[in-house]
Each structure stands twice: as structure tokens, then as C-alpha cells.
């Protein structure tokens, strides 16, 4: 395969492909259930009990209980489905995004207001490794 050709080479990115779709199926279906006010109420009242209705993996269940947005994505969550859980918890897309990068809300917003994250250095894992290699040898 040509260098940089495949989407799995892109850093910090978990494209929602067939693997994610299979792995995250029930996690995303759970998130979708929160499009109903009644379900949001039930979930917020007792999230652990609500989750038992869905056959999630342990790791997925913990990610939801911990509101660990990045972990949910890594476990096959798709951001658009996961955003239904975000909304249920009162978070905007911006706040979820900040959380996934490990930045504070304020710093993330500051980054966006100054033009966003640059693509330079963020295109390719291979490129990053090569640059790191050059630095250390």
C-alpha cells in the first residue's frame, strides 16, 4: 500500500468503518434510545440499571458510566450516536470534542478561535513516526 494512503494511518481518528460498526453496534443503539425524553429520564435516574437492557461489553459499559467520550469512540461508538448521550448529559459537541482531546473547555475554545488545530503534523501516523525518528537518532 502506498504511504499515507489508508485512513487507518490518520492520527487521533477512528473512522466509523465496518469494524467499528460491528464492535459498536449495541453501544450506538443504546445511544439512539436516548432520543426519547422518557428514556433520558430513566437513564439519568439510574444509568447502570438502564444499561442492563443493552448487551454492551464491560469496557463499553464503563466508558458510558464514566462519561469517557474518547473511550466510547474507541469502543466503536460513532460520534453522532454518542452525541445523543452527550445531549442527555447536557454537553454540546464542542464540550465532547474538548473532552476527547484532553483539553479544558476554555483551552479548546481558544484553539478554535485562533483558527483550529493545524493539519501540519497531524496528517499521518507514519509521517509522525518518521519525524520522531529523525529527532531521536
Amino acid at each position, binding site marked *: 500500500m502506498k504511504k499515507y494512503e489508508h485512513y487507518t494511518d490518520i492520527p487521533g481518528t477512528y473512522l466509523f468503518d465496518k469494524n467499528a460498526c460491528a464492535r459498536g453496534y449495541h453501544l450506538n443503539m443504546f445511544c439512539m434510545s436516548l432520543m426519547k425524553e422518557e428514556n433520558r429520564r430513566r437513564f439519568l435516574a439510574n444509568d447502570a440499571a438502564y444499561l442492563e437492557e443493552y448487551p454492551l461489553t464491560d469496557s463499553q459499559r464503563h466508558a458510558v458510566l464514566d462519561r469517557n467520550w474518547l473511550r466510547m469512540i474507541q469502543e466503536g461508538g460513532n460520534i453522532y450516536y454518542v452525541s445523543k448521550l452527550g445531549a442527555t448529559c447536557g454537553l454540546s*459537541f464542542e464540550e465532547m470534542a474538548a473532552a476527547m482531546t484532553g483539553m479544558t473547555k476554555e483551552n*479548546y475554545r481558544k484553539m*478554535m478561535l485562533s483558527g483550529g488545530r*493545524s493539519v501540519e503534523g497531524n496528517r499521518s501516523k507514519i509521517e509522525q513516526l518518521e519525524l520522531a525518528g529523525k529527532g531521536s537518532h
Partner: protein
Amino acid sequence: MAQIVAGIGCSHVPAIGVALDLGKTQDEYWKDVFKGFERTKELIAEIKPDLIIEIYNDHGTAFSLKSIPTFSLGVAAEFKPADEGWGPRPVPVVKGDPDFAWYLAESLILNEFDMTIMNEIEVDHGLTVPLSLLFGQPKEWPCPVIPICVNVVTYPSPTGKRCFALGRAIRKAVQEYKKDLRVVVLGTGGMSHQIHGERCGLINRSWDESFLDRLSSDPQGLTEIPLVEYVRETGAEGIEMVMWLIMRGALDEDVEEAYRFYHVPASNTAVGNIVLTNRSQTKVTT
């Protein structure tokens, strides 16, 4: 005969809808965004479309993972705004045009586009935010809207080339429709944004601006961009820009850029807007 009188590209950032719905359009953070759309609002008021064909994507709202259609088309009489987790947006119900929509679906299928026909579909911010940007906060939307929904959530989305070809087929269908309708094709989504993973917040202004340039100067060239380039250069969710190519395909080869607006940021996203008209029609009407 019906004709396509303009193509509009327009981001559909959900936070823009929230800002409008909560009356924050004059806030420091938002005022430049809404100011940027003023000219487009004037233009669409002049154009007065009889019908809008709106290309958008569903964001895990109407479509669960059970069924993932590449291209779907809403033939219902109305489309209710969906509850995306915050309750539905306080905007008018979107009215369709079942006669035209079924006509369009038939024409597209017989011309070898494998559409999914939707008799019932609720619409999310992807469809309603651009309407808000074009028309503000009316009691009713000024014309019917035909939703064409594109899968850009599960990889692979349709290619840029396929999207452009769909635009061409839409143009053909419109031109063969027997009623006198002035139709606007609205391509939504984009521009650069990534809203998942550690690379959240990615913005590639020069790529976006080149894309906007090439919509007029080199549309065929744009159709050659591989899907992975959108993802790498403009953020994973920047892939939505393939939908602008459906809009572009529905126009003539030779277009005039009537207006353009570009702004960073709205929430995680670069906001883009462009209004294109067919140069042949522009000449006739001026």
C-alpha cells in the same frame, strides 16, 4: 418546464441552530457568522425558489445502524424536526412535495441511481440549520423541500464522482419536469471539521478555500479527490463536503459565484457558504 436557478453550499453546524433558537445571534461569538449569511438571505429572497432540493446527511437520527442507505429521498408530505437529545428544534415542520419527489425518485432510479425511497423520515439539524440560515425564523418555510439524504456516517460514503453524477441526474430530471418551477439545489455540510478522537478541532482553511475556488473553476477536478483525502486534510467529518458536489453537478459547467462566505469557528467547525448561478441564466435575466 422546471429549471435549476441556483446552487447553494452551506454548512449545517448544529450549534448555529442552537444559537439562533436561543436568540444568541448578536453574541460576540456568533455575530460574524450570522452577518456572513445576510447577503445569501437577500439573494434567496430575490431568487424566490418554488422548491428546494436539499442534500444533507442524517446524523444517527432517522437512520439507526440497522439500515444504512447510500442515497435516500423523502417523498412524504411533511418532515418533522427530530429530537436529537435536546428535544426537537423549534422550527416549522418541513413540507415536502410528494408529486415532485416521486417523479424525481422514478427518474433517478430509471437513470441508474439506486435510491432508497423514504415514505416517513424525521429530519435533524443537517436539514433544518441551512433552512434557518437562508430564511431566518419564519412561521412557515417559504417553499417545499425535497430531502435527499447521503450516507457520510458509515465508511464508505459515495465517492465525489458518484455524487457529482447524481447532481447531473437531478438536473436532467428537473429540466424534464412539466411544471414551471424555479428550483434551488442546496448542498449542506462541511467545511473542515473533526468532532471525534484526539484530532478534534482540525481546520484546514487553505484546503477549504481551494475547494470553494474550484467549485467554479474546476468542478471535474474536485470529483477526483479520494475519500481519504477529505478525512486526512479536512477532518473526519469534513467528508460531508462530497454532498456539495451533488449540488455542483446539478448546475451547468459554466457558473458564476454570486457570493461566498468563510468563517472559523462555529463550535468545532469551519463555516462555509457559496451561492452559484448558471452563467447562461444570469445573462438571460440581467
